[in-house]
């Protein structure tokens, strides 16, 4: 893996796109994680389909470019295959809050130890800007030329209701802050979510608005309800860790100490067990 985590693939995001900030933050975070003792060799990524998904090609890390909406399920599978790995799933708002919402909420509920980063640009960017689950009512896109008639969902509240143990929001325009969040999320023992405000310069160029409203939190909230209230604020956009708690992870509870790929039974042992079944 290259020192700078580059793959050499041509980057086809638009100049000025918020995705560049996310890419920079991830790279920074991986380096910080290495200082903290987590090797990049142990980090595995999964991505959905959309502009966000292209980060797969730009990060020199192992992983899978999954299907639209399935990056969280892919991530969970990798984790269960080898729970020693650190998994980061990258999704889009269409992808992870729409097509794949159920996977996200169930991952949160079961508290599987993965990190999910959603590039939330309030649009289906790659498919030319249709309204997404987080688009405001009245949003104009090619499938809603007269304005979308649906109010947006508020993803952090949903995640808190589902039982997520680490819920946070970042901003693609604040790379340092975002990279800190990523480090915390990956180090959090359990399901960690980062909703990233990500302007799309083509469809949702909210840089100005975000620059004005974004506000770094000092403390996490101590109850879920407080965290939910925070997520609903609209006169400012708090960023940081809204809520965190520690509770048993799904992978530990399901697997105990066993690592399916490392602690595979010897052929001999397996055969013996099967014989026991067949013969007794």
């Amino acid at each position, binding site marked *: 893996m290259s020192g700078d985590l580059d793959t050499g693939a041509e980057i086809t995001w638009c100049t000025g796109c918020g995705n560049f900030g996310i890419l920079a933050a991830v790279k920074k975070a991986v380096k910080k994680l290495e200082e903290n003792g987590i090797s990049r060799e142990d980090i595995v990524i999964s991505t959905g389909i959309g502009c966000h998904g292209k980060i797969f090609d730009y990060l020199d890390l*192992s992983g899978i470019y999954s299907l639209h909406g*399935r990056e969280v399920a892919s991530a969970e599978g990798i984790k269960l295959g080898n729970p020693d790995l650190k998994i980061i799933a990258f999704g889009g708002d269409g992808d992870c809050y729409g097509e794949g919402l159920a996977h996200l909420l169930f991952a949160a509920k079961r508290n599987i130890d993965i990190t999910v980063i959603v590039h939330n640009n309030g649009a289906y960017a790659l498919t030319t800007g249709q309204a997404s689950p987080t688009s405001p009512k009245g949003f104009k896109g090619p499938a809603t030329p007269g304005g979308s008639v649906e109010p947006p969902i508020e993803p952090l509240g949903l995640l808190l209701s589902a039982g997520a143990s680490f819920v946070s929001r970042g901003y693609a325009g604040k790379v340092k802050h975002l990279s800190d969040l990523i480090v915390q999320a990956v180090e959090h023992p359990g399901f960690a979510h980062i909703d990233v405000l990500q302007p799309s310069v083509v469809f949702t160029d909210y840089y100005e608005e975000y620059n004005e409203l974004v506000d770094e939190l000092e403390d996490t909230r101590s109850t879920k309800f407080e965290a939910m209230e925070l997520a609903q604020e609209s006169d400012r956009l708090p960023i940081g860790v809204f809520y965190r708690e520690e509770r048993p992870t799904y992978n530990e509870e399901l697997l105990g100490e066993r690592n399916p790929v490392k602690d595979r039974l010897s052929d001999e042992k397996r055969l013996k067990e099967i014989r026991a079944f067949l013969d007794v």
Partner: protein
Amino acid sequence: MGSKDDVKAMDEELFTVIIGGQAGQGVKKAGEALSKFFLEKGRYVFEMDDYQSLIRGGHNFASVSSSTEEIFSHHMRADVVVNLDKTSYEMHKKNLTPDGLNFYNSDEIENGEGIGLPLTSMSKEFQRPQLIMGVTGIAVLAAVVGENKDSLVSLVNSVYPRGKEDNTAFSKLVYDEVLDKVGSTLDLKEGDCRNRMFPGNHVIALGAASAGLDIYFAYPMTPASSILHFYASHGDKLGVTAVHPESEIAVANMAIGATIAGARSMVGTSGGGFALMAEAFSLAGMVESPVLFVLSSRPGPATGVPTYTEQGDLGFALHQGHGDFPRIVASPGDMEEAFYLTADMLSLLWKYQTPGIILTEKHLSESSMCMDVDPSKVRTVEPRMHEEDTEYKRYLSTEDGVSPLKFPPSKEAIKWNGEEHDEYGITTSRSEEVAAMHDKRHKKEEVILEELKDRHTVNVYGSGENVIFTYGSTTLSVREALRCSGIEAKVVQPIYLRPLPTWELKKHVEGRSIVVEQSVAQQFSTLLEDKIGLEPTSVIKRYDGRPFDPMDLAGKIKEAIR
């Protein structure tokens, strides 16, 4: 289903018991007890459980057939029929052999044909009068064939570990009542079978475990659920983790994820769940992930008839997933094959890094029969792994299209890509690269075909100028029909369905040919017409959700070859 009396069973030692009742009356357990009774007599046994999609009430039955010879199916004409309720009585009084004994619940039916037992009143004394009734089956059987009471009690104890006392007490009551009413009039020869019996799903589970399965992902769906339940109970010992996520889409995508970590993974479902896995199946083809999919069919379309059997998913299975990519589809014709084939498939898929399907049906998944397998005969193949001294490319172009594998942690990035990609796994839409990757994957299809040409791909049973083509669990019905009726015919059963071993099958396109299958659209026959130019003289199909009764089928075959 017609022509019952044309053909007579020629196996004189064939002995069938049918027990029917409501869900909640322990009918399935009763079937198990009957099977065990026969097994302990060294007899070969086949047990078929017929039940509805409900938890209490309705009508369930078990048909348990046994013989001193190897037996491949249950029968629907029984030597002993035990009806716990009225519906059963109405339904099964027609299922008797000429000398068969019909037992019914005289508390529910007045003046029935056969022998009335006051089952409801007899069971009233007990704590769980409904559940206890199931014991009637084994008690009746023990009595009519002259088994002694102690053996009966010890059998009841072993099959009903919970509630031993009540169960043994009730079985003794019934035993005495039957002895009293009819005595021991039937003969049951002992055999020399020393095998155990298992339901097909357990055999599939054991087969996969033998080949080194690490994780089984599934969302419950009849008739595949018992694979999940098996691993959930026994996976610890076998080194297989059972995972039940929120949906089939999660199941399939998690399974692919697990292979990226290096874990051998399998999933199981029925038609509707498999439909939801279509996109992930295609993803497995693209990223080259060797997930094994078990598709156990029930009657479709849609939710269909959840607890019955059918072969209507053949075309669907053969063409699962959008786009061009190699896949292997195979269907076992009996329990032993289910064991070895599942193991083999897991290895084959890892060898060629592409998804595949074990296609089976409720009739194999949930019926039980005697079988003899040796897990040490399972051939496991180690997948091609990357040699550490060269640069790693996930999709390295090679002569056979198979690229070496590598798993994290890894110094070099291992990139599995569901979009079209270059050798490194980086996304591309460049025309030469797109074509080259298609060629690479397609090469695997050709190599798989070559490998199959060296393998045993078609089972042929018997001989004769009449050729019967069949596949999957219907093979069991056909073999039993021939065995019992003495009709001479050659049975040809392709084990692999994609690629279809046309080179082998074509050898049997001669003379009169009959296709037997369970699909109204006769999908299997169509496949053979398409692929080997078969022009069947006759297609025998059944599509009411029930497996063939062997003697019925024998009658139909006889008609067809007449």
